[in-house]
């Protein structure tokens, strides 16, 4: 029983990540009609916002000490972090909370990246065939990746969660069953965070004119133009929003998955599957599919199930996708006519 509960928690956690990435992808799909293969790269850039913020915090003053030598005979470098030297305890505090604090940095940065991407490139592709969109965004994704690789290398770069949430929560104890369900705090934080972000996105779309544009645009982009709204500006903001959501997912995921330049590509295919299983043009569908696939993936990895169906954990997501798409023609909550041509 507790094993099942733990797997459920794992599934929620994974689902949170899938849903966050898929949300932005489906926004861009549904509203702007663009197949964005660079969306994974946005997720990765978010993670590297956290890395960069941490790097800046840990910038070190390097002093060469000619007295001591390294193993290869050069003078030893004595390194002292600037932040701690200048800010003392506050510096140490910042360093400890570098991942959550970097959200503050990531939001404007990702918004800027999103806006620049949309203004500089994507907007010229609204009316182009999907094939062209795939080619240009894939090319862009490669370029972004290679730039990150050039500066940060290919090796993963570990990011620590704040100490206060680095341990595990004894969830069982809350129900009088101490020691049975122990789960890392940071993963709980991540799940909560994803719920909050998803809620915020929905609220934003529900209560602002942007939301109206998005919801109407997902239905019929021509009519929205007739409403006399500056649709270009709204589109830009929607793309920026998608970038921010992907970026925030990237930031918060770093303590779970040490980021490297290729992580976007690793998530890309999966997020496409999530979006399509959810149904094209449906935001709730994407969220639902994200959590559903996350949870199913967790359960499929249990030894009891693997012993009956060897290798099921490797293909479960794709298997579920096939079954759903064959029984429900437009995924869980898709609408007719979106990306079906």
């Amino acid at each position, binding site marked *: 029983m507790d094993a099942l509960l*733990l797997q459920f928690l794992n599934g929620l956690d994974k689902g949170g990540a899938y849903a966050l990435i898929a949300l932005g992808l489906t926004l861009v799909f549904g509203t702007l009609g663009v197949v964005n293969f660079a969306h994974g790269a946005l997720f990765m850039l978010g993670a590297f916002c956290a890395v960069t913020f941490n790097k800046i915090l840990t910038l070190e003053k390097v002093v060469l000490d000619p007295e001591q030598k390294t193993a290869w005979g*050069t003078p030893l470098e004595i390194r002292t972090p600037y932040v701690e030297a200048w800010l003392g305890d506050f510096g140490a505090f910042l360093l400890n909370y570098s991942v959550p604090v970097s959200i503050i940095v990531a939001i404007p940065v990702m918004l800027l990246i999103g806006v620049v991407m949309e203004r500089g490139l994507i907007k010229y592709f609204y009316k182009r065939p999907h094939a062209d969109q795939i080619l240009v965004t894939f090319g862009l994704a490669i370029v972004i990746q290679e730039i990150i690789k050039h500066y940060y290398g290919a090796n*993963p770069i*570990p990011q620590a969660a704040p100490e206060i949430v680095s341990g595990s929560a004894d969830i069982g104890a809350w129900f009088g069953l101490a020691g049975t369900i122990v*789960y890392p705090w940071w993963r709980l934080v991540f799940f909560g965070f994803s719920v909050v972000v998803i809620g915020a996105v929905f609220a934003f779309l529900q209560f602002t004119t942007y939301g109206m544009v998005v919801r109407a645009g997902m239905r019929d982009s021509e009519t929205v133009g007739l409403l006399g709204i500056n649709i270009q500006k709204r589109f830009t903001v929607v793309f920026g929003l998608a970038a921010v959501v992907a970026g925030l997912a990237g930031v918060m995921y770093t303590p*779970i*998955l040490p980021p490297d330049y290729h992580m976007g590509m690793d998530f890309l295919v999966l997020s496409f599957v999530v979006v399509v299983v959810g149904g094209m043009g449906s935001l709730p569908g994407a969220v639902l599919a994200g959590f559903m696939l996350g949870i199913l993936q967790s359960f499929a990895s249990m030894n009891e199930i693997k012993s009956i169906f060897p290798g099921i954990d490797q293909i479960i997501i794709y298997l579920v996708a096939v079954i759903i798409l064959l029984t429900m023609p437009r995924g869980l909550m898709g609408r007719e006519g979106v990306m079906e041509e």
Partner: protein
Amino acid sequence: MSKIALTRRNLLKAGAASGVALAAPMSFVRGAYAEEFCNMPTGSTVTLGFNVPQSGPYADEGADELRAYQLAVKHLNGEGDGGMLNTFSSKALKGNGILGKKVEYVTGDTQTKSDAARASAKRMIEKDGAIMITGGSSSGVAVAVQGLCQENGIIFMAGLTHSNDTTGKDKKRFGFRHFFNAYMSGQALGPILAEQLGKDRTAYHLTADYTWGWTQEESIKNATENLGWNTANAVRTPLGAGDFSQYLTPVLNSGADVLILNHYGKDMVNSLTQAVQFGMREKQVNGKNFEIVVPLFSRLMAQGAGENIKGILGTTNWNWSLQDDASQAFVKSFGQEYGFPPSQAAQTCYVQTLLYADACERAGAFTPPQVIEALEGFEFDGMGNGPTLYRAADHQCFKDVLVVKGNENPTSQFDLLEVVKIVPRDQVTYDPAIFGGELGPADVKKC
């Protein structure tokens, strides 16, 4: 002139080939240039092919391998401080290239994919005239390229490859491995595990679901079970799973008190990070501290795992903190050249290049069968791993194996591993028959 330019030989080939295209049988393509064996060096230079991952997850490791190769070429050509040439027990190399011919090299990207690696190696053989191929950062790639080299009669000096298969069931006459393997990891690690963690332990394996993972799981399982450990479960995880939480939670309540991660590269960094996150380092099971073991370690991976690696036991082929003369000499020349110490991948690649060059010198020729003969059963020292034997039966090097653990108090950003014990060569030597396989013939082949 770059390699792209027209060379007379390529033109000849092309001319002959297109002639063939229009009329005659293919046989005289081969006659267009006569040589004794594939890519026999005829000019004043000899070309080596360095085939390393430059993109994909092992790109950093590949970059380090390439640095080592370039350093080796320098030393072979008599530039720089000579590095391990000064400590190597064989004194055949004189710093004037190989057999008097200046060493040149070509590089390629394996992308850590068999197909791409073979394509790259073929380019080196067919276009660039490489006489030896070396490199690689995964066993799948090593086995694939080794097979190709066997077919083409080109010597392959494997880089980082840890699977038993490379010199086991997939061994080849033209393939040689200096790096240690999973079986040796198990033999070396087993006794230390028993010593440090006790004999009454229950292990839980998480294994990357492909050939290398399986051979390592098997080797470690055998070694630990022989010492009296139990195995609670051995679970296969998909390559590149990213999030391993669904495989980690069952460990907590399985009754196991040791988690063995048969992962490498990114998988290992992720699974270890997440295992620590799940509180496995602080856990108590059966009144004992829960422990994590990573049988194959590298410094680059340790860097990726950060804090989490501290105190974790594993094995490694070589580490720059070794104090013998050879290691020191290598670290010195590498560090002076690039500003940081070499990784184990760099060391094995550097040594392989030197060993090949030395074998040519001792054989007095580049002819592959003679070089193979010179390498088979070659006993040497002064390369950083103590006295080493290139066993003739399977072309595997037998040398000391390092058992290491993540450094608790690193003095620098590179000082991540602490050597726990140097396990002597006798303890890890095994009977070549246990893995089967056949080396195949050492025929001279023409391109």
